């Protein structure tokens, strides 16, 4: 019914103007009023029926017939006496008996006259009284005028019969009228009740529908509120509490000054999983990770939450280091089981940082910010330690963090103060042992101390300062090469490193174009080494930038192949000219057959893709021989010279060239 357009419009109208709740209330009120009205109507009808019933309760018909009988009885006795000419003792008794009956009947009629004062009743009563009086008088007279009395009584009885017939007819009318009236009452009552019933059914149906609608609306509202509440406090993907809920729980715990620990967990290479296997696989990893974490945390009476992305947080009501280590160990074990998703078997490795309320300001004046910061420091340390590590916060971490911060803050100032300088490592041809170019590397002279590049480069990359450093190196190295190549018949090439961060937009293309234009370096002498230490998401965009760079003329080289985020998919997607095999492949070349096998395979792949191969990290002649045997012609390493400042490099180059010339 509520599906029909008309009823829908009706309910929409109702709900718009009154609100279904008010409408339902009104409908119920009408129902109650109708019920009360109906009850009054029925009561009134019953009273009316009861009033008409009185006609039957008083035996008006019976009294009439009995009176007729009593008159006949007396008349019969009188006429028998008249016929016999005298009255015997038996006749006298019968006469008195009949008079008694008649007198009693007169008494009954007296009541009828009171209760039903119609003309017919009065006439009948009068006739009976006359007959009774006449009979009584004759009895008192001792039946002396029996003959006259008999004649008189014959006439009186006749009059009484006529009056009684009239009375009976009237009584029959009364009863018929009463019956008809009862029928009318019943009919009108039935009609009223049917109408009432239909009305109540209709209004009741409306009320039920309105109530149902109201209930449905309320149910919907409650559901939406519950949903909103859930969304406000829980993560939809994993079902874990979200950051908001986590913060509330943390605040509660802090308010209770309860001893506790906070853990921050970060999935290893989650972005790689997403990019390689798709977001469905990434979501599956997050879900399984959350399930296992939640299960483990629950067994320690803690709370696990997803803060966002691949970041999870835990609060445990524990500060005992042994218990916390056991927890970490158990969860590491939990996550050693691969996560299966669509036939894939993925590992959900993670880093974990942990801080106890006791370790942070000894639990006194502890704030959420303090605890979170300490845990974050521990997580950072864990990440520094490598995949699958977990670290507990201690005060010494604060110093390292402060140092890192200071180093980071100093980078922009150092750029302005020109504290950075470029060093060059030769790249040689293994066949001729001639230097054909250099790799330009950045160094930092900070207050007279050279900062190791592994200290500041990852930091700069992490905080997106690497781009300025890369450009700094490119500008200086290219200019240096132009100077070195001036007048040379065998121009040298230079390689500069470019962080993957450059490839999120095409600005690098403008920079390279500008530098080449400013220095007039033949573009083919510039090699851009892409170090993929940050993950590149948008391969199409990266390829597009690389294509534009290649159009300018520089060569593209994939640096540190075999480390970082580089992969076979990466090889296939980027059209590079050169592949630099990381030193890690070279270290064990002499001892390990497997290392040689891997190198052989990588060289095959690079050749198949038409790339030039440069092997990094050659430190011994044996390594150089093996690499040469594999058909690699270009190499780099301490065997041929480490990174040196520009002057030393060029001097060494010239000296080496002279030696080679003499040998040649």
């Amino acid at each position, binding site marked *: 019914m509520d599906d029909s357009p008309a009823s829908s419009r009706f309910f929409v109208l109702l709900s718009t103007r009154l609100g279904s709740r008010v409408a339902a209330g009104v409908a119920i009120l009408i129902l109650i009023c109708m019920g009360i009205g109906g009850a009054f109507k029925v009561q009134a009808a019953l009273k009316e029926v009861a009033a008409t019933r009185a006609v039957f*309760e008083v035996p008006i018909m019976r009294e009439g017939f009995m009176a007729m009988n009593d008159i006949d009885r007396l008349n019969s006795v009188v006429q028998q006496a008249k016929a016999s000419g005298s009255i015997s003792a038996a006749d006298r008794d019968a006469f008195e*008996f009949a008079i*008694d009956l008649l007198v009693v009947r007169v008494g009954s009629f007296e009541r009828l006259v009171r209760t039903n004062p119609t003309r017919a009743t009065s006439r009948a009563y009068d006739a009976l009284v006359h007959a009774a009086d006449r009979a009584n008088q004759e009895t008192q007279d001792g039946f002396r005028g029996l003959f006259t009395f008999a004649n008189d009584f014959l006439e009186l009885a006749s009059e009484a019969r006529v009056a009684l017939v009239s009375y009976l007819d009237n009584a029959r009318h009364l009863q018929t009228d009463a019956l008809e009236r009862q029928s009318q009452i019943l009919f009108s009552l039935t009609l009223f009740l049917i109408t009432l019933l239909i009305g109540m059914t209709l209004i009741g149906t409306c009320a039920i529908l309105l109530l149902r609608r109201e209930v449905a609306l309320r149910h919907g509202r409650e559901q939406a509120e519950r949903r909103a509440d859930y969304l406000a406090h829980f993560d939809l993907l994993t079902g874990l509490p979200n950051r908001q809920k986590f913060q509330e729980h943390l605040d509660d715990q802090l308010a209770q000054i309860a001893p506790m620990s906070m853990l921050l967990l970060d999935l290893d290479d989650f972005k790689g999983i997403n990019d390689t296997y798709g977001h469905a696989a990434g979501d599956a990893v997050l879900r399984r990770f959350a399930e296992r974490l939640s299960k483990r945390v629950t067994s320690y009476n803690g709370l696990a939450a997803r803060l966002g992305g691949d970041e999870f947080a835990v609060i445990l009501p524990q500060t005992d280091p042994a218990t916390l280590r056991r927890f970490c160990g158990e969860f590491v074990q939990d996550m050693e089981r691969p996560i299966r998703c669509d036939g894939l078997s993925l590992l959900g490795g993670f880093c974990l940082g942990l801080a106890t309320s006791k370790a942070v300001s000894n639990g006194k004046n502890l704030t959420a910010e303090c605890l979170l910061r300490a845990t974050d420091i521990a997580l950072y340390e864990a990440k520094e330690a490598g995949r699958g590590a977990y670290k507990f916060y201690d005060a010494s971490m604060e110093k390292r963090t402060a140092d890192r911060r200071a180093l980071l803050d100093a980078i922009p100032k150092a750029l302005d103060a020109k504290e950075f300088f470029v060093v060059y490592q030769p790249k040689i041809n293994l066949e001729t042992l001639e230097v054909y170019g250099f790799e330009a590397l950045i160094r930092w002279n900070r207050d007279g101390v050279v900062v190791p590049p592994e200290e500041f480069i990852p930091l700069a990359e992490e905080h997106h300062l690497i781009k300025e450093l890369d450009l700094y190196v490119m500008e200086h190295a290219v200019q240096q090469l132009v100077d070195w190549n001036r007048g040379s018949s065998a121009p040298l090439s230079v390689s500069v490193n470019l962080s993957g961060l450059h490839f999120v937009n095409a600005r690098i293309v403008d920079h390279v174009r500008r530098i080449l234009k400013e220095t007039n370096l033949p573009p083919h002498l510039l090699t851009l080494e892409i170090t993929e230490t940050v993950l590149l998401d948008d391969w199409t965009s990266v390829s597009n930038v690389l294509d534009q760079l290649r159009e300018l003329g520089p060569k593209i080289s994939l640096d540190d192949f075999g480390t970082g985020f580089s992969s076979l998919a990466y090889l296939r997607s980027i059209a590079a000219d050169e592949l630099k095999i990381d030193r890690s492949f070279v270290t064990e070349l002499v001892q390990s057959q497997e290392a040689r096998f891997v190198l052989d395979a990588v060289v095959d792949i690079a050749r198949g893709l038409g790339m030039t191969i440069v092997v990094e990290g050659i430190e011994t002649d044996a390594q150089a021989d093996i690499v040469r045997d594999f058909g690699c012609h270009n190499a780099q390493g301490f065997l041929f010279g480490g990174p040196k400042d520009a002057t030393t490099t060029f001097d060494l180059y010239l000296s080496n060239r002279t030696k080679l010339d003499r040998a040649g």
Partner: protein
Amino acid sequence: MRYFRRAMIGWMMLCGTVPLADEISPVTLDPITHQRASLRLDNGTQQVTLSPAELEELETYRISTSTPWRAIAADFDGVLLRDVLALNDMQDLDAIRVLAENDYAVEIPNWVWRTHLVLIATRVDGAPHKRRERGPLQFVMLHDAYTNDPAMSEGYWVWMAAAIEPVE
């Protein structure tokens, strides 16, 4: 209908509107000379005829009540209908037919004498019950109880009662 009747009686008993015969105590009556009358009890196999004096050999009771024809209350003395019926094993009949001297007849169902006090009055205000006062044998009930029970009928107030028979 029977169940409805029982339910009604039960309800009325709960409301205390039904006076039972057990609620009154017997009275001892002085000997008097009764009006000439007789009551025939016919249970279908045996007939017993009793005069007012013979009836009063049963336990006698007195009720004070008005009647449909008498607004002022009078003391009616007599015997209980159920005791009279018991004389001839008629107390468990479903219904009886009461005949009067004036040829009046009425059927009285069992529940009437089971639940109501029905007296066969032989005296009024200590005097023999005359025929002109609806004697000599009159069925009398407490007027209030009679009017309060819609199932009761004025027809049960039989006067000049002459015979009681089983209903076929």
